[in-house]
């Protein structure tokens, strides 16, 4: 594969959008099902609520898409988000401004993300082992720093920002939309994005073409950590506090959304439009089951089932 072939990124997102029907059908079916069987499901406030609930998940699922496209996995995102939230809340409690606090949270996320990247590329660990280790480290650091307690007293600024709306659309949805826009440009219209496809597709060819594959590959994980740190802004705003275990397991929702959205672990296969639909499918499923008074434990189980079912459909079609 030559560089020219690698760089034909512009048309790729249309390909990816064209491949999305599976998850689009799923989303439509879920919407119809819950509208019919769930009283109050299809109300405007509830649908807006799904958007708000899905926005944090999208912030994690966007970088997770790139990680999974390159045959990786980031199990540490939830724990890193939790730790970043603690740092953000603690900085606000200490009287720093929101900019400084967010900067600190981003830094924490970046450090863990970069560590994941180095462990995977330089040290050569399988991604699950590297990120399982940093999961433990981030979760442990959050517990040690807080003694397992919530960090409260962050002041009115962040919660007010979180509760604000512009043109009738809540703040968190604007943030999610902006993040999507940034990732869309990054993946489909930059050299970096083209390399993401190529690392997943044919890593050796890319290396032979003289690209510093390890650096780009590590940067994907660093981006994941950075976004986990950024998501702390919404999480802390929503909870009005920092809590060390608040985001545990959120990486699973993100992985589920990406897989359901059609991205796969091989050949650089997948894309961001599918991930958005996957995030919405997970959000609709959780919210709808909630409306139907299904316990949250079974919501988790149903998402596990959804992931395996999505992979099974592939397996039966013989694509993987």
């Amino acid at each position: 594969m030559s560089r020219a072939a690698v760089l034909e990124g512009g048309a790729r997102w249309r390909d990816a959008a064209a491949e999305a029907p599976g998850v689009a059908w799923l989303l439509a079916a879920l919407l119809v099902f819950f509208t019919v069987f769930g009283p109050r499901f299809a109300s405007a406030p509830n649908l807006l609520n799904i958007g708000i609930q899905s926005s944090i998940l999208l912030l994690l699922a966007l970088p997770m898409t790139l990680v999974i496209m390159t045959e990786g996995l980031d199990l540490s995102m939830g724990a890193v988000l939790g730790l970043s939230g603690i740092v953000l809340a603690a900085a606000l409690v200490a009287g720093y401004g929101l900019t400084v606090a967010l900067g600190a949270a981003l830094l924490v996320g970046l450090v863990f993300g970069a560590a994941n990247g180095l462990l995977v590329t330089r040290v050569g660990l399988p991604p699950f082992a590297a990120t399982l280790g940093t999961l433990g480290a981030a979760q442990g650091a959050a517990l040690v720093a807080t003694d397992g307690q919530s960090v409260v007293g962050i002041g009115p600024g962040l919660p007010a920002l979180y509760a604000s709306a512009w043109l009738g659309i809540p703040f968190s949805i604007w943030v999610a939309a902006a993040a999507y826009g940034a990732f869309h440009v990054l993946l489909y219209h930059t050299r970096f994005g083209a390399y993401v496809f190529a690392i997943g597709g044919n890593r050796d060819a890319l290396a032979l073409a003289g690209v510093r594959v390890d650096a780009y590959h590590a940067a994907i994980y660093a981006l994941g950590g950075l976004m986990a740190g950024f998501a702390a802004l919404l999480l802390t705003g929503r909870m009005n506090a920092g809590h060390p275990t608040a985001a545990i397991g959120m990486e699973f929702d993100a992985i589920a959304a990406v897989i359901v959205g059609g991205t796969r672990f091989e050949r650089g296969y997948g894309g961001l439009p599918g991930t958005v639909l996957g995030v919405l499918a997970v959000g609709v499923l959780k919210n709808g089951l909630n409306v139907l008074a299904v316990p949250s434990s079974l919501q988790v189980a149903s998402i596990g089932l959804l992931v395996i079912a999505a992979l099974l459909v592939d397996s039966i079609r013989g694509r993987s």
Partner: protein
Amino acid sequence: MSAAPPAGAALAGWPLRMPSIGYRLLGVAALCLALALATDAFLTLPNLLNVLRQASLTFLIASGLTLVIVTAGLDLSIGANLGLSACFAAAVIQASGSVLLGAAVGLVSGLVIGVANGVMVTWLKLPPFIATYGMLWMVYGVNYWYMAGTTIYDFPQGFRNLGSGDALGVPVPVYLTAAAMLVGGLFTRYTTWGHDIYAIGANREAARLSGIPVRSRLMLVYTLSGAMAGLSGIVYLARLNSAEAGMGDPLLLPAIAAVLIGGTSLFGGIGTLSGTFVGALILTLTLNGMNLLTIDTNWQPLVMGVIVLLAAWLDASTRRRAEARA
């Protein structure tokens, strides 16, 4: 062994590539020495037996996982599996009063989850880490739903002895571990099936071409891993004398850590059960030492994460050196 294993070529140099236990035993000795010097409570018989009991429990969960990882696979569902199996066993014992029936249900529950993992990995060709990760959350959800926040506790003394009792002054789980190591050791070392497992992990394609029934061997190791998680669930239940939905959640990381510290390679083809036991011992000594030094339990996930990273790093660098030599 009468007939040569069909994967003779893939197994050339097999004994040489096993992880050396020596360094690890040295690590155990160093940890013991440090803890004996640092605390008075360490070098007492009750504490040492306690360490042995705890290490045995960790070994039991990690034993099936060891064989899975030797095939270059992975089973992330064992912690959740252990929790669900223990809760099912607890409910049945409570409802029927029969320990035997409860234990059978727990074991079967673990086994069924293992079979489901095996089917996903072999027949449906899903990547092991994502198949068993999905299974983790499915089993987790079902268990939290089933238990609905309740705790089942207070079991017959006879049953509790399985986890917390002694026989001839030695904790009962130690006997179970010894039996598992003996049977598992004989299986991996002296049977064709055992050798097949290593051959698959070393080079799956070569194993398939030399006539090894790859699918049924993989089916076997995932089933074993599930069954061992179920069995460990029963022993944990007997040890804790109570069951709640979250009991297995914190056990996945230590199990993986024990396997890696024991020298089993994540890249497949290399690893032993005795190594995993030594890994479990090192892990337990570390945690026991932290307890004796009254270090806050909040530090445990952090320490566990760092240990996993160090062990995986050791594995990756050993592999790189081996490749450089080749």
